[in-house]
């Protein structure tokens, strides 16, 4: 384990911070360009991106990569990411293994090459992938630089004249709506693992109604008035639950001047 002292030596400027955590331990022999710590390690788009960064950073020749040196630095970064407990995608480890393999193959004595069918340089495939990735990164930048609708250029739009035959509006059936909901929720369940409980719709519906009513009366509404007896017992309970939910979500405020006075509800207004 490198000591904090070695980190000091490498980066006398300051300690790097990442996700609020102070970075004090760095692999002692890791080459760190002066401004490298500004590069948030999480920002790399994968192992190819990181490798390219290491190579370009030091003006190394991509066609003749000093594989031992680059491997050492790559592993150094991986180690650093580990120490910062960054979640390491499997691809990074796969690349580490690949680099190690290339390195060991480079160390093996090469058999004499027969003219015409040259033994492939073990780095060949890696170089190809790096060049291809670099082209891609370039292309992505080019694409981003194109004038884009909504960002650089805008559709010119005038209000259409009143048309005799109204422009037909899309029709939606209830079935379509239900399937859209199911799809959205099943995806959420898949992606987030978060538990989607089925809340009583009636309570949520009443929450909307109460909010809409409160929006109409800036002076606030009497709590009693919201619990219309005409709703029946179940209705009153639903309204009551809706008010509690709204209070919990801090969407409404309840005001009571003195004990036993009527309670008033106010919408928590946009500007206030």
């Amino acid at each position, binding site marked *: 384990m490198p000591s904090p002292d070695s980190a000091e030596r490498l980066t006398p400027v300051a300690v790097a911070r990442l996700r609020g955590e102070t970075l004090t331990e760095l692999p002692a022999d890791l080459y760190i360009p002066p401004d490298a710590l500004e590069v948030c390690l999480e920002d790399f788009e994968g192992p190819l991106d990181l490798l390219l960064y290491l190579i370009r950073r030091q003006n190394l020749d991509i066609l003749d990569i000093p594989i031992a040196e680059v491997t050492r630095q790559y592993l150094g970064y991986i180690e650093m990411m580990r120490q910062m407990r960054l979640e390491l995608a499997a691809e990074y480890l796969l690349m580490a293994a690949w680099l190690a393999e290339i390195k060991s193959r480079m160390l093996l004595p090469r058999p004499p090459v027969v003219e015409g069918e040259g033994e492939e340089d073990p780095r060949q495939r890696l170089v190809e992938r790096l060049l291809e990735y670099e082209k891609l990164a370039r292309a992505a930048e080019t694409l981003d630089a194109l004038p884009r609708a909504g960002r650089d250029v805008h559709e010119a739009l005038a209000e259409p*004249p009143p048309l005799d035959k109204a422009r037909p509006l899309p029709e939606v059936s209830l079935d379509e709506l239900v399937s*859209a*909901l199911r*799809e959205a929720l099943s995806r959420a369940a898949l992606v987030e693992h978060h538990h989607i409980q089925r809340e009583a719709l009636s309570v*949520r519906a009443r*929450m909307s109604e109460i909010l809409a009513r409160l929006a109409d009366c800036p002076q606030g509404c009497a709590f009693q008035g919201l619990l219309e007896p005409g709703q029946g017992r179940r209705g009153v309970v639903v309204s009551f639950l809706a008010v509690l939910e709204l209070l919990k*979500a801090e969407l*409404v405020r309840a005001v009571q001047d003195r004990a036993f006075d009527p309670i008033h509800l106010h919408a928590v207004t946009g500007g206030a």
Partner: protein
Amino acid sequence: MSTPEGIDNILEAVLLAAGEPVSIERLLEVFADEGIDRATLRDALARLQERYSGRGIELYESAGGWRIRVRAAMAPWVARLWPSSPPRYSRAVLETLALIAWRQPITRSEIEAVRGVSVNAQIVRTLQERGWIHVVGHKEAPGRPALYATTRRFLDDFGLRRLEDLPSWTPPEA
């Protein structure tokens, strides 16, 4: 760009990009760096109005502000643009509407959390313009995000008497 013609051209571009009425105050903000006052702006609007005389478009002021519109006389030609079969809403619009219907009142970021993608302003506007959703309040949270709910009109259009009549959905992974 601060020649009168330069101002007119920016004004025209901005009004056409807005696609909605733009108030004088908003226009003054657009020209904040040029230090243009109300009177200069009014002059420019008048010149633009003049520019469109005899054309198929016109500049007019409504309650919401200034807007460029196509003259009523152009209606026969414009009408031929639109297909007679109704267009369809995108998946994104339908899912957003469904989430608002079943989980109202709900904020945009709550919808985004479930859908896993950002809900762009256009989607919300489409549903608002259709009269199916409205803002019923603002949440006590940074940015005070709007809370959306469905409208009376939504119930009418879907043949529902009240929200409780929405069909129940079976939870996924059932």
